């Protein structure tokens, strides 16, 4: 089963401030945590992809009717908190395992070493139909 474990810019359920307010040690510990988690998931053969996205300032929204020139809206947007910030894609045996990994991500060390408690969206990636026997 493949899952996307996604996080957006909002959804932090602690009183953790923005990363630009953290101490250098807090930032270092956070980066180290992500690195170690990726290593663990690579070694367990579960990690398919891990990506961080560039910020809302760089985002563009595109709408087109296929005839006229597309309408392109530049960021930043008032609803920036809902934008995707990054994700991991994992291949695991069960939903429970995906939730376990999401829980690790959510408890990443943050401001003053406390868990960030970021809300992680766990979404199963749709696959091909099962082969007919």
């Amino acid at each position, binding site marked *: 089963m493949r899952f996307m474990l996604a996080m957006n810019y909002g959804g932090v359920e602690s009183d953790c401030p923005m*990363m*630009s*307010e*953290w*101490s*250098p040690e*807090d*930032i*270092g510990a956070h*980066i*180290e945590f992500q*690195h*170690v988690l*990726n*290593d663990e998931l*690579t070694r367990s053969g579960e990690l398919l*992809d891990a990506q*961080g996205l*560039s*910020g*809302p*300032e*760089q985002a563009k929204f595109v709408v087109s009717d296929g005839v006229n020139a597309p309408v392109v809206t530049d960021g930043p947007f008032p609803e920036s908190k809902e934008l995707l910030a990054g994700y991991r894609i994992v291949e695991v045996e069960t939903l429970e395992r995906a939730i376990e990994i999401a829980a690790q991500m959510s408890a990443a060390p943050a401001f003053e070493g406390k868990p960030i408690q970021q809300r992680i969206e766990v979404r199963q990636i749709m696959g091909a139909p099962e082969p007919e026997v």
Partner: protein
Amino acid sequence: MTPASTTDGLLASLAPQVLGALVRRFGDFAAAEDAVQEALIAASSTWPDNGVPDEPLAWLTRVARRRLADHYRSSDARQTREELAASWAIEPPEPLGDSDDSLILMFMCCHPSLTATSAIPLTLRAVGGLTTREIAAAFLVPEATMAQRISRAKATVKASAVPFELPTATDRAARLASVLHVLYLMYNEGYATMSGSDLARVDLSNEAIRLTVGVHEALPDEREATGLLALMLLTDARRPARSGPAGELIPLEQQDRSRWNRALIAEGVVLITDCLRQGGLGEYQLQAAIAAVHDQAPTHAATNWAEIAALYRLLERMTANPMVTLNRAVAVAMVEGPRAGLDLLDGIGDRLGDHHRLHAVRAHLLEMAGDRSAAFDEFRLAAANATNRRERDYLNLKIAVLRRG
């Protein structure tokens, strides 16, 4: 048992020779390239267990020719089939493998009608002897996507009807420039996708160096090729110090210079010094000269910044690239003070927009000038616009340090 890595190295060195022989004989680059690829896969799955055959080059050529024959047998063109049948019957021991083959293949793969996105994988497969799977993994894309990209690139080369021969003297300079550009981007791609956690992945930077060595050996008098090789060696020399244990970016100023690779530096310095002595003045030679000044400096502060600023000035005139101006501003600030560097940045925003490097350089110079609050704002803009995770992490750290005061 032969270790797989030994087999891979041997295959990579033989692949262009086999392909060169086939293309010279049958003239069909696209089909020959497929056949060689299949022969490589056959070799890498049997040699590690059965041992390397006595004449590996002949083995590979024989298998590749058989695959090419199978391909034509299944195709409809009866005439081609008959012509080929006649040619297989002879099977003469043909002269194989001189270094010109690699060079000719490189000229084909780095054809100006191809974008670098297509030319790099094609070069890695045809000249570098890598399998599609290895290339896909190096670029972090699915194997099917990479296979499609390579086959479209070959179709483009085929449609352009490039003959399998060295370009004429008049075309040669422009084509060599394409080859060098592709190798330069291949090296940079290796830097960008570098990750400590996956050691099995082919290192694109090492591949680029290996192929550039080949070009330099085939064309020792082409000074830009020499310059590019020197640039890669001088840049690669700093690789061990360029990132920390978690893959985080360590800027030049903070690198532990004792970790720089002295042997690579010595090699690069000899190459670029000889080049410049002959009066060379190309883009890669200038970049290599700048890298050599950094690599020979005992510390960041004791670097010959005046020389670096002068070299960047030459490079700026030659390329009119605003990114060069950013680097020059840093060097000028080290010589004449941060305000002189900041003055150079005026108006550059019109050409670079909100590029994070512009904000980062401005922030750095403002910090040097003691204007912490303006530096802080610029670092935040830089972090917000960063498109590279490691750079963003670094910028956030700078912000945190400035905040602490």
